[in-house]
């Protein structure tokens, strides 16, 4: 029995404003509020709202027969929350029908997967939590920004605990193979791969309203006939596209929503079902490993990363951005973290492409790739300066890394010691109940948020200072624990890594 996996992606970037180099160091706000509000409301009105309403209707009309998957980027979600919360309400409503599965993707819609594994992991996990919080589902299937995939990315995603991943059924990786099967990652057989059928997907998202196309006008029953006529053994048809294809790329006047609405009924007649990615990944069996040594994506005819990293400007911007990835990851400044998300969005790199006419490329406020590059680099210059004031630039990444590892190890040590303290205190309590039990308890309680593993804001500097503080009480009498929490914020004021080991000594002297 054939089954259709229908998936929509929702992502809009936070537009950057015109930022001249004189602004570097003077202005730390990088965004074009007007353009952001305008573009997101426009897309919501013309595309997201009507499209989601149709999906809700389809879910209601067809009961559990119709299924759809949706993923959102974190930055897109923030935009919606800010300027078009009604879209979130519709998503909730759709979620209520039980027909929708939410997938996970990198929060920033960036290219971290190509540059920094830790960042990639961190933001993916953050997105997973956000989806959980919003919709009560824990995503089990992953889709990378623009379906970028390679064997290594697959292995990373598998290590994060996802069961499946969506990617492009690009001709050059499939060769003679068909995208209508489930494959698995070459480096980790537990990660299933669902491959986009670019022909059937693009028929809707790219060609639907093209009157010069020979199949124009396309009707739902013709479309379902194409699927029904596929060879018997080809059972999984993955139709992935951006949600804005419905309404923006293909105008609503083309009746694309009516087409969509008719799909379930036509499918039913032909014995074709709908499935969610998770169903396919858990129930379906892989027919074999798919080797993808180089990155593929769903963009352009090349289906590779050349539209973001094709020219040397893009590569410089990319390398500069991710050169500070580790520093940003360990920092605790909320605004830096937020800017980091927005600056990573892959669209920023796409604006700089010099490839001849790629499909649907809108350069936003920029005239040309150089303009886009200059503006982005100015902003990045300011951003890097801000990050470097947190961590002096003269410490190179390796040194910083080793210092961070020291801190991390110390954090773990502290955790261990805290547990020890607790144990000892409990013993102490047993020995001398009543007396100093209360103040002693406070110290471990405060110590808990310290462990480096969870990147809680402000946790890192605290942790830095903390090792010394905590060790001291551990060695001395637990009774002395009380004044130390107060010392911690003071130490935080000068959060230079170099001093971390030194600090260990100072509190001891107290």
């Amino acid at each position, binding site marked *: 029995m054939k089954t259709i996996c229908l998936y929509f992606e929702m992502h809009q970037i936070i537009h950057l404003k015109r930022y*001249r180099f*004189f602004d570097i160091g003077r202005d730390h706000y990088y965004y074009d509020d007007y353009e952001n509000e305008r573009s997101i409301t426009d897309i919501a009105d013309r595309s997201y709202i009507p499209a989601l309403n149709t999906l809700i209707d389809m879910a209601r009309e067809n009961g559990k027969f119709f299924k759809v998957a949706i993923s959102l980027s974190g930055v897109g979600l923030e935009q919606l929350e800010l300027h078009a919360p009604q879209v979130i309400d519709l998503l909730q409503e759709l979620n209520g029908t039980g027909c929708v599965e939410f997938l996970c993707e990198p929060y920033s819609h960036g290219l971290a997967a190509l540059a920094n594994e830790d960042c990639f992991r961190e933001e993916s996990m953050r997105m997973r939590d956000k989806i959980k919080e919003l919709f009560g589902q824990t995503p089990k299937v992953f889709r990378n920004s623009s379906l970028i995939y390679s064997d290594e990315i697959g292995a990373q995603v598998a290590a994060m605990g996802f069961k499946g991943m969506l990617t492009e059924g690009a001709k050059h990786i499939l060769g003679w193979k068909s995208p209508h099967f489930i494959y698995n990652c070459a480096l980790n057989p537990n990660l299933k791969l669902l491959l986009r059928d670019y022909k059937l997907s693009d028929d809707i998202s790219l060609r639907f309203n093209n009157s010069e196309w020979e199949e124009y006008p396309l009707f739902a029953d013709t479309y379902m006939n194409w699927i029904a006529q596929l060879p018997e053994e080809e059972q999984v048809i993955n139709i992935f596209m951006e949600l804005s294809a419905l309404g923006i790329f293909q105008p609503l006047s083309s009746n694309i929503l009516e087409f969509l609405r008719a799909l379930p009924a036509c499918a039913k007649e032909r014995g074709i079902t709908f499935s969610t990615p998770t169903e396919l990944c858990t129930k379906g069996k892989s027919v074999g490993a798919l080797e993808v040594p180089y990155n593929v994506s769903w963009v352009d005819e090349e289906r590779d990363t050349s539209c973001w990293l094709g020219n040397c400007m893009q590569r*410089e911007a990319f390398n500069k951005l991710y050169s500070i990835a580790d520093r940003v990851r360990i920092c605790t400044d909320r605004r830096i973290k937020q800017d980091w998300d927005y600056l990573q969005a892959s669209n920023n790199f796409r604006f700089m492409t010099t490839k001849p006419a790629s499909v649907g490329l809108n350069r936003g406020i920029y005239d040309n790739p150089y303009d886009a*590059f*200059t503006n982005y*680099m100015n902003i990045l210059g300011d951003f890097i300066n801000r990050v470097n004031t947190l961590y002096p630039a003269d410490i190179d990444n390796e040194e910083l890394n080793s210092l961070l590892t020291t801190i991390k190890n110390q954090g773990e040590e502290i955790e261990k010691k805290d547990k020890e303290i607790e144990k000892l205190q409990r013993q102490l309590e047993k020995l001398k109940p009543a007396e100093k039990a209360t103040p002693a308890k406070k110290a471990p309680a405060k110590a808990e948020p310290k462990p480096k593993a969870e990147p809680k804001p402000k946790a890192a500097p605290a942790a830095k200072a903390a090792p010394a503080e905590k060790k001291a009480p551990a060695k001395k009498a637990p009774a002395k624990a009380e004044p130390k929490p107060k010392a911690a914020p003071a130490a935080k004021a000068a959060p230079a890594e170099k001093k971390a080991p030194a600090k260990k000594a100072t509190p001891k002297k107290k």
Partner: protein
Amino acid sequence: MKVLMFGWEFPPKIYGGLAVASYGITKGLSLQNDMETIFCLPKPCGEEERFLKIVGMNQVPIVYRGHDYNYVKSRIPDYMTPEDYYNYRDHIYADFSYMNVNDMGCMEFAGGYPGNLHDEINNFSIIAGVVARAEQFDIIHAHDWLTYPAGVHAKLVSGKPLCIHVHATDFDRSRGKVNPTVYSIEKNGMDHADCIMCVSELTRRTVINEYHQDPSKVFAMHNAVYPLSQDLQDLPRPDHSKEKVVTFLGRITMQKGPEYFVEAANMVLQRTRNIRFCMAGSGDMLDAMINLVAERGIADRFHFPGFMRGKQVYECYKDSDVFVMPSVSEPFGIAPLEAMQCGTPSIISKQSGCGEILTNVIKTDYWDIHAMADAIYAICTYPSLFKYLQEEGLKEVNEITWEKVGQRIRRLYDQTIEKYYR
């Protein structure tokens, strides 16, 4: 096909872009086997290349003198023959003995752009009448307004179609304050022309809107550049890893927008100190610019090396990291193409005609000094942008050749002739 061409400048004597363009166009045309060009110049210096027939207007008699063959041979330069002289002498069409002629019956020209330019233009057109009667040709091609009267005269005499080539209009030169005499000469030339070639779409629009020409006879014919000779290519690019150099090169005059360059330099220097600015050339606004630089207090980083010629120009390009052409109105502007040939990225104003055929340059509005400063800073600061513009710019500019321009001009000639006799 034979073309009678009128020009005012021709290499090796170069006053401005007109000479370069005239050379390129004739050279491009000469690559076609069946093309012959007669090029009329007021005062050739005798060292012109010989791929075309040069006619020195100062060697064409307009008053009959009965010199014998040997005397004529001894008097006229070697790019013309005594037969030419006698041929022209046979076609004198009126009595010009009242004019100021020499013992050969010819008029002298000062050459270039002297004070009595209007007289010279007039004389040039009188002589053109003789040449047009004496020579056989299929079409007339006149370069720039100085030769339009000659072209019109030749057309009226011969009945052959006239193409005029607009290298600039007075609207570009004067920022809108047009000289009525010049305008009337330009307008008259255009009215008589059967085909108007403009060096850019920008100029084409000026011609249509300001000179009220029929759009169907006005065409954009972009200029090109000649590949650099080997010794120019071999000029070294000095190492600028410590300090960058940003260059303006051209006449320092209102049309070229030098003050915008100074203001942009000022903005850049407010933020960084490792960039030097250089304004090469001379012109009526040079003193004003020196004052402005001093007023802004950036004279320690802003240099005026003066007028450059020949090889110096290319040395200057090669010694720069950014070339800026902030022209207020530039019909074409060949300089950025030359800079790109030398591997120097260019920033040009959107009001420059060459921008229509270039993509690997940064374009800003001439008045937008913020954008210009930003672009200067970016090229000096981000090596990848410099490298991209350098490499891709070189590739791009190598594709813009006079040979292709020659072919396009040829097609226009054919079209014009066909239309003319229909």
